[in-house]
């Protein structure tokens, strides 16, 4: 049996000029969000017979609607969540009408899933915020709206659902709409459209309801088909982050990437943001032939008139309207992993096509997503949002997020786990970095070192408390002094009496402790001094920060490896006894983790040799590396 073929008109419609709208839906299961999306798919005929048969079976097993088909089950995908009756992740749905195709990001509404909502919102142009007509504007409504606003969404549909359960009353709907508009006024939405509907029965979703004659506005689908979200991306300044340098042969050198904003034409003068080098666009190359122009969203390959040094990560723009270039900026940051954000710790950030090391230099305040209040904070946990200052290892080209969602957004990557730890939106560049110029001194590090007949370095002893770090470091310094070397010894306990007496033992304070010590040690290295540092320094990432402060070969990590049991047995200061009794919180090895070095320059096993032998090994290592002369 063959299905009748649709008319030529229907076919023509399906291939006609159609636009794409990406939107997200916010709300909890209780608001009927899954039911609403199920209704849109069902009413736009995106549900096939075999899926419907599976749905009828599922409705009897998992459904909450008795004998009726539970449309929510159309979209609640993973087994785990079907059993738990919750949506645990961002899901994407697709449907189309004659006028538009739609990509729906379906995001969960629970507080702990701020992360998912931000993810869904990052690529959406419009948000459908669901409200249960019986409950009105709730805390979660405010949270959803704030996150949408934060991620740059400017169009909102307020879907007042379950209108049947308030007897289709206009005054109930009006009260909710007014309360919402009052709350949302400072959030910068360009347009808010409120629609009374019932997802379960289909009123005002795709078809107009005669039970809501007082509603003069569009149905949800009518609005989604008609709303104009055309961003002005094409008329904004031209930005092309270079993604790939295409060199099939010596005669062709193309710069491939997706245009973030603006328009480019052959003959345009362009500038490389970082280096300031300029050239002109020769061709816009595609497999379908050269183009006369290309605009925001197009993936193209440009060739230039001159040989200019350009690599992945560079940003091309027109000379008259360039992005900012700086290694410091202020941003809003959403934290997305369990491991807390620690200011001073080294992370990677990826912005457009560039990935660089970065640290948060200050956490200005947290933002309460429910009340929008500013709160003081020293660290940031999962699903928390803050305003921060960021410093990157190299200067980046960027725009404020409010001006450009492509060149103003970045993700934060954890260097240990490679997890996506956070997402950021740039507020503005910081000029601080450009206004403080380094004072160049006439006598440099090499000169100072030569006078001392040695090469300076940081010799960093790390290990558990009572592992023997300080004892060994002390003996190493005695041996070096005897050979006429210039040294300095920085020790954990001593530094905490002075420079770092304001710091405690939380993770955040430990990071700051090591950062300051690293900076001091670096000054000693500049002075040409071999600097011995004896610190528990439990975290790999902070040790790496110190390593990155000085030049190659100027940081030697010495892992003083003693088993915890040996340290506890030794316990010269009685600290383990107290820590094990619960009297000292955050004690490394007991109630706070120690991350052993992955590739130390030297490992000293304290159970296998005497302190004397271990100290000799360190001195030997310095000889081998040419830091001191052999005697």
């Amino acid at each position: 049996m063959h299905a009748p073929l649709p008319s030529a008109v229907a076919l023509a419609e399906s291939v006609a000029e159609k636009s794409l709208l990406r939107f997200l839906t916010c709300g909890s299961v209780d608001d009927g969000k899954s039911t609403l999306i199920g209704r849109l798919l069902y009413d736009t005929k995106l549900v096939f017979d075999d899926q419907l048969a599976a749905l009828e079976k599922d409705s009897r097993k998992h459904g909450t609607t008795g004998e009726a088909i539970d449309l929510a089950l159309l979209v609640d995908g993973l087994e785990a969540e079907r059993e738990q009756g919750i949506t645990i992740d961002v899901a994407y749905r697709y449907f189309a009408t004659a006028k538009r195709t739609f990509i729906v990001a379906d995001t969960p509404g629970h507080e702990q899933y701020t992360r998912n909502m931000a993810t869904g919102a990052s690529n959406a142009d419009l948000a459908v915020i669901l409200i249960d007509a019986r409950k009105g504007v709730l805390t979660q409504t405010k949270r959803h709206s704030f996150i949408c606003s934060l991620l740059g969404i400017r169009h909102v549909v307020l879907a007042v659902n379950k209108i049947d359960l308030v007897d289709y009353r206009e005054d109930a709907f009006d009260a909710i709409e007014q309360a919402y508009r009052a709350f949302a006024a400072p959030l910068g939405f360009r347009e808010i459209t409120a629609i009374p509907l019932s997802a379960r029965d289909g009123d005002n979703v795709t078809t107009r309801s005669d039970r809501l004659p007082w509603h003069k506005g569009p149905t949800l689908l009518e609005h989604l088909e008609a709303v104009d979200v055309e961003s002005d991306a094409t008329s904004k300044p031209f930005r092309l982050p270079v993604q790939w340098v295409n060199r099939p042969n010596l005669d062709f050198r193309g710069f491939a990437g997706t245009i973030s904003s603006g328009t480019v034409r052959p003959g345009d003068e362009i500038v490389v943001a970082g280096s300031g080098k300029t050239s002109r666009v020769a061709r816009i190359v595609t497999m379908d032939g050269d183009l006369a122009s290309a605009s925001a969203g197009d993936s193209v390959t440009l060739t230039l008139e001159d040989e200019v040094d350009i690599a992945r990560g560079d940003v091309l723009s027109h000379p008259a309207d360039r992005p900012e270039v700086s290694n410091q900026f202020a941003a809003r940051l959403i934290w997305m992993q369990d491991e807390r954000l620690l200011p001073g710790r080294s992370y990677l950030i990826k912005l457009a096509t560039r990935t660089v090391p970065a640290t948060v230099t200050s956490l200005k305040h947290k933002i309460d997503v429910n009340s929008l209040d500013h709160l003081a904070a020293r660290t940031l946990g999962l699903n928390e949002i803050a305003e921060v200052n960021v410093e990157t290892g190299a200067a980046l080209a960027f725009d404020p997020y409010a001006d450009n969602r492509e060149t103003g957004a970045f993700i934060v990557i954890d260097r240990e786990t490679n997890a996506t730890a956070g997402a950021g939106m740039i507020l503005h560049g910081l000029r601080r970095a450009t206004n403080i110029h380094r004072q160049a001194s006439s006598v440099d590090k090499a000169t100072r070192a030569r006078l001392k007949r040695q090469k300076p370095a940081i010799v960093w002893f790390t290990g558990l408390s009572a592992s023997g770090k300080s004892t060994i470091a002390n003996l190493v310094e005695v041996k070096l002094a005897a050979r006429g070397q210039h040294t300095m010894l920085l020790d954990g306990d001593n530094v905490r009496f002075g420079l770092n007496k304001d710091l405690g033992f939380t993770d955040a304070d430990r990071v700051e402790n090591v950062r300051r010590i690293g900076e001091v040690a670096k000054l000693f290295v500049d002075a040409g001094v071999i600097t011995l540092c004896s610190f528990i320094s439990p975290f790999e990432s902070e040790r790496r920060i110190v390593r990155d402060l000085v030049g190659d070969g100027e940081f030697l990590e010495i892992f003083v490896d003693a088993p915890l049991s040996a340290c506890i047995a030794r316990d010269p200061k009685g600290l383990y006894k107290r820590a094990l009794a619960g009297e000292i919180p955050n004690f490394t090895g007991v109630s706070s983790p120690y991350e052993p070095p992955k590739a130390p320059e030297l490992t000293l096993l304290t159970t296998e040799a005497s302190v004397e032998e271990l100290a000799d090994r360190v001195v030997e290592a310095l000889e081998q590396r040419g830091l001191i002369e052999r005697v």
Partner: protein
Amino acid sequence: MSGLSTHLKRLEAESIQIIREVASEFRNPVMLYSIGKDSSVMLHLAMKAFYPAKPPFPLLHVDTTWKFREMIEFRDETAKRLGLDLIVHINEDGVRRGVSPVASGSNVHTQVMKTEGLRQALDKYGFDAAFGGARRDEEKSRAKERVFSFRTANHGWDPRNQRPELWRLYNTRVKPGESIRVFPLSNWTELDVWQYVLAEEIPVVPLYFAKERPVVRRDGALIMRDDERLPLHPGEVPELRRVRFRTLGCYPLTGAIDSDAASLEDIIAEMLASTTSERQGRLIDSDEAGSMEKKKREGYF
């Protein structure tokens, strides 16, 4: 980019961006080429992404030895026409053990010849990223799949441990042994794929077009007898019917549909009138509820 509607242009540009990102950030990527319409579109996009250069990665086909003969012919012709490296991997251990859809059933056959075969090939060549042509609209459990799907060193997929994907910023970092499966067609629908094939004149396997073919009816599905290896039940006689395939796979596991659609225009028209989803023809999905999710956890693409 000329004759495409706005939304297809957008999908095309986004897929090209994803393909270039993988080539830029991974040490040793590969494109899984399964010969079907989605693979054909993905390959076409890869050709566009690097033009005038060739894609800087090889194609990999995990051959279960039960694909339609026309698929294998089309595969070899395509690689030759485009001048691309094609790696064909067969799980020889499975062949020795005599695993087949006929003798072992769809579950065991798919697990051994497809899932295990894929793992073998990825390990053998040390690929750290593999493109696949899967789309999110194919099946419910795919709706939450990331564009960059992270796999452990054992090729495991943990739905709770996937990275959030914001904007178009993909986190491509993996440790040695870990890998990423990349789905550049994530946001395409079946209709998008066919309309793009039509607009871009992309060659596809002739099995998609209606023709008289010898089929037998089993468990409600029309199975084409592509060669003598498919044993006939007592009294069963293949009949010639005018059929075509909506999806392609191992021939004993792929149901045909009655159809007169002999051109791309016909296929699109037929699909607009269709009342069943494309996966209906795939016998491996209906084994049990949530079966796709289960297969993915085990490393199925």
